[in-house]
């Protein structure tokens, strides 16, 4: 039996409506239900490629697809839904916004129609904007506006690219399949613009340096629960776009096999990795530091996509490693960064600060929290035994086939990444105890919830097949038979 996507959308809408009507804690519990439904949907659809066609509505084609990237991302969505509602007792309004956001994300990750894709893409901005603007920190208005306008500029170019495809191909609808397959027939100038438009939108969302400056402000100013879902899920929109929308477009276009764009992507990825690590090394605010760590993690995906497009199927082993590595990195980064930001929040609640110089020697007073921070940071450094390792090592091994000696730059980035994590650990949880902090205590419930992400990243780290067996044979035909 298959769980129809239309039913899912219907039930989820009802859940959202119920959350709006209900008062008190019910919205929080409904978010758990919401996530459970999403998870059930993925499991019942057997985690393979499933198409859902519901005809068309005027020029909109109501066709959806659950492919292996979206399966993984839907699992991540359900995890974040559960995690945030267990970890944070925010106001009911927040949970309604969260559900709305998760709903839009499910739309993005499943739709096969460009207009719907754009609509869902823009819908995501609304809850994020309000989450930052209402519950944010001292500089929330600036951060919220910056976030909204910056990412909206990217979306506009994507919309223009979509319309360029539609009008120049003379298509009758906005179905992704039709528009992508027809792209190589139109003039090169238009093709270039389409490639640019999508790339620009996705690289902003990912984000890639230098298109990232919305991110540190948004992450730092957002309330902790907002940071968790923005960092874990919103950056995945860009990655999903690169892997599932941009790659097929590029492969189908006349640019397929050319190296300029892939090289540029890889260069941007490598630059992002090194630059974000260097900036992170200098940060005093733990939350800001980890925002840059998040950029660093996502840059592996840029490198992987660039390498994958560069190879153009010529080295199947390396291509597979890169693509699988990128998909694995999606879920592992999502969970690790959620855990990190939640722990930083616990730390801030306990000590009253998240400035690294004001901390020190926390292992003495907060051994359990220190243990969790240590493991979360090590997971973020991609130590074996944690899921971060699987994604990163696959991408590194695969990218040798593309980068050869230039791999040294990626490796410098890897060392720098390790450096700032370890440097921060040395000054926060190790070293002599900072007596100015006084007698501090961490909230027990918060620590208990941290076991959940830790268990998952550990399980995925030692037995990646748990997730990888969802990655089925459908990848290759899905990308247009490039192998």
């Amino acid at each position, binding site marked *: 039996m298959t769980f129809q996507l239309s039913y899912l959308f219907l039930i989820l809408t009802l859940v959202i409506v119920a959350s709006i009507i209900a008062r008190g804690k019910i919205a929080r519990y409904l978010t758990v239900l919401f996530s459970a439904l999403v998870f059930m949907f993925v499991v019942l659809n057997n985690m393979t490629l499933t198409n859902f066609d519901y005809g068309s509505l005027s020029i909109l084609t109501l066709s959806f697809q659950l492919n292996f990237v979206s399966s993984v991302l839907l699992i991540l969505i359900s995890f974040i839904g559960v995690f945030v509602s267990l970890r944070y007792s925010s106001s009911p309004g927040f949970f309604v916004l969260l559900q709305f956001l998760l709903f839009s994300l499910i739309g993005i990750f499943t739709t096969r129609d460009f207009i719907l894709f754009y609509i869902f893409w823009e819908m995501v901005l609304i809850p994020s904007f309000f989450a930052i603007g209402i519950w944010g920190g001292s500089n929330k208005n600036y951060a919220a506006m*910056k976030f909204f*306008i*910056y990412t909206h500029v990217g979306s506009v170019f994507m919309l223009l690219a979509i319309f360029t495809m539609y009008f120049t191909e003379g298509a009758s609808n906005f179905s992704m399949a039709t528009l992508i397959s027809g792209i190589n027939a139109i003039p090169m100038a238009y093709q270039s613009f389409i490639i640019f438009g999508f790339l620009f939108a996705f690289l902003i969302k990912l984000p890639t*340096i*230098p298109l*990232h*400056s*919305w991110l540190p402000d948004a992450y730092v100013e957002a309330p902790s629960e907002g940071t968790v879902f923005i960092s874990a899920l919103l950056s995945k929109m860009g990655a999903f776009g690169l892997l599932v929308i941009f790659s097929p477009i590029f492969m189908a276009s006349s640019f397929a096999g050319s190296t300029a764009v892939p090289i540029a992507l890889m260069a941007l990825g490598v630059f992002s990795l090194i*630059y974000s690590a*260097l*900036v992170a*090394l*200098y*940060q005093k605010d733990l939350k800001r530091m980890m925002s840059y760590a998040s950029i660093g993690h996502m840059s592996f995906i840029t490198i992987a996509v660039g390498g994958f497009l560069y190879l153009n199927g010529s*080295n*199947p*082993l*390396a291509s*597979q*490693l890169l693509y*699988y590595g990128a998909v694995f990195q999606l879920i592992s980064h999502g969970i690790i960064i959620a855990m990190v930001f939640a722990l930083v929040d616990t730390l801030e609640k306990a000590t009253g600060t998240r400035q690294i110089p004001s901390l020190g*020697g926390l*292992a*003495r007073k907060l051994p359990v929290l220190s243990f969790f921070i240590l493991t979360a940071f*090590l997971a973020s450094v991609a*130590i*074996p*035994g944690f899921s971060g*390792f699987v994604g990163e*090592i696959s991408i*590194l*091994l*695969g*990218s*040798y*086939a593309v980068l050869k000696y230039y*791999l*040294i730059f990626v*490796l410098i980035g*890897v*060392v*720098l990444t*390790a*450096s700032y994590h*370890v*440097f921060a*650990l*040395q000054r926060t*949880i*190790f*070293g*002599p*105890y900072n007596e100015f902090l006084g007698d501090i205590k961490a909230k027990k419930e918060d620590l208990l919830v941290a076991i959940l992400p830790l268990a998952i990243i550990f399980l995925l780290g030692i037995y*990646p*097949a748990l997730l*990888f*067996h*969802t*990655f*089925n044979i459908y990848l290759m035909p899905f990308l247009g038979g490039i192998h």
Partner: protein
Amino acid sequence: MDLSIILTFLIFGLPLIGFPFVIGIGYIKKNYSMYLGSALIFISFLITLFLFFTYTVNGTVIQYSFNWLPSLPAIIPLGIYADNLSMIMALMVSFVGFLIILFSVGYMKEDPNRHVFFGEMVLFTSSMLGLVLSSSLIMLFIFWELVGLCSYLLIGFWYYKPNAASAAKKAFIVTRVGDVFFIAGIGAAILYSSGGALSVTGLSSIHLVWQKTIVSLLLFGGAIGKSAQFPLHVWIPDAMEGATTVSALIHAATMVTAGVYLIARTYSIFTPTSLTVVLYVGIVTIILSGLIGLVVNDIKRILAYSTIGQVGYMVAALGLGLGATSIGLSIYQLEAHAFFKALLFLTAGSILHAVMNVRDINKMGGLWKKMPITVTAMFFGALALSGFPGLAGFFSKDSIITASYGVSIFAWALLAIGGFLTALYAFRMFFKVALGKPRSNAAEHAHESKWIMLIPILVLAAFSIIFGIFQRGFYSFVEGNPVTLAFGIAPLTTLDLIPVVLMLAGMGTAYYAWGRSSTIPSTVTNGAKDFYLLVKNKFFIDVFFTNVIAERGIIGLSAVSDGFERRAIGGLVNVSGSLFQNSGKVLRKIQTGLARQYALIVLIGLILALILLRIFILAGVIH
């Protein structure tokens, strides 16, 4: 699945699964975790012993692989590969590891966090066991990283000491530099062998020489980091901030031997070019560490530099390029070193325990009378380290020096000089510790340690003395032949005499300079002041890494990036934002409400539109 396969998995699997329990049981009673930890490693040792005598001695290679990522069309194998080389390593690691953990039971019994300590020690040993039994480079790398992680945790175990926290960070980052070379090496091996090199036996499918050279040099880069060879040796002396038993484990059984094992395991792809690099990196390391060892006063740091030097001999032996003979020479030195270095560290630990952790050898002295058993054991350790005829170090090290004669006389000369330096610094340390009068209050009140600390010391001392008789059988075993049970040593030649003479000269010099009150050291120091300062500052390698690369280079670059981030990128975004706001302010002024002005603007617009239309028609854009 065969019993032997399951048992081989258990060698490292048992302590790996067991280590959380070691920590967990400590919450019931702290001492239980000490017993459980020792028991786990002891069982591993027993299993290894059983497998060794049931399978390995008969020439059976136990191997089993499974696919880590089953749904990937590409196969990423994980599994075990236990041939002679792996098993002899596993035997040594579990045996020496067990003795060190046993010693820790006495050494750490006062520490409030000892359950965590024992958990980490067990994880450390099991990671090393997993490393030597891995069937693929990926799995080897996984355990390689775990070994690095454990060293990070254990060096920083006394996290409240700023030096320990800083040393842990340094060890982690420096070995990480090596590790990324290892990653690149695996990537290169996979590419050049079309995926075959994912298993250790598949490395032979790399055919071209230049490809082999690249892969082998990259792997060697990883080995340099872990095995603390020049120029990445800087983490090891600082790592002495950890507990002495941790140092013993890092230096004898695990960690530093991992790099040597990696080279031995992948020896088939080392080309003459890369072997030359390996040889001279080893030699440079020996000479540098020998010189620095002469001017350091911290007893543990002297031992640290001696480790760097002795591992240098292992690396140099591999660099000689004598095929399987090289592996035999190197691994034999590795095992002999494991015994006498563990012995030296444990005796040093025992001494430090007695003198309240004063590590300066200038503040010791006269300890032979106070702690006769420990210091006698240390004497044999120092003899073995210097290669005194008849002891383990002699057979292992002099064979390497003699073997190098056939490869390059230059290398031979340097290796022999290295032997002289080794004897010199080893006995400088020993005489300062053991002879003379106590030079501090703590040394005055030193006393012998407990039996649980003495037993491992005595066992290790026995092995350091008698290990030589296994020499010939060992070589042929590591070279892949079944065990012949041939006790005995390789035949000696006159060439073997020269290192012995040099070693005795070193011992004698050490006695004259430091064994009694003498002015020789200060005369030499004042005579060659520039050179002394150069050595005393460790050839400025640490300074270069810390002050130039880390603090000026990386932190500087980081500050610049941060400034650029805030001013340039952040500024640009804000400027473009305010540009639109301000343009709105300017354009707002057109809204005057005067109908005549609006009419004028409409007229101007119309004319502009017509002109544009005309231009487009002329240009052919619109037909």
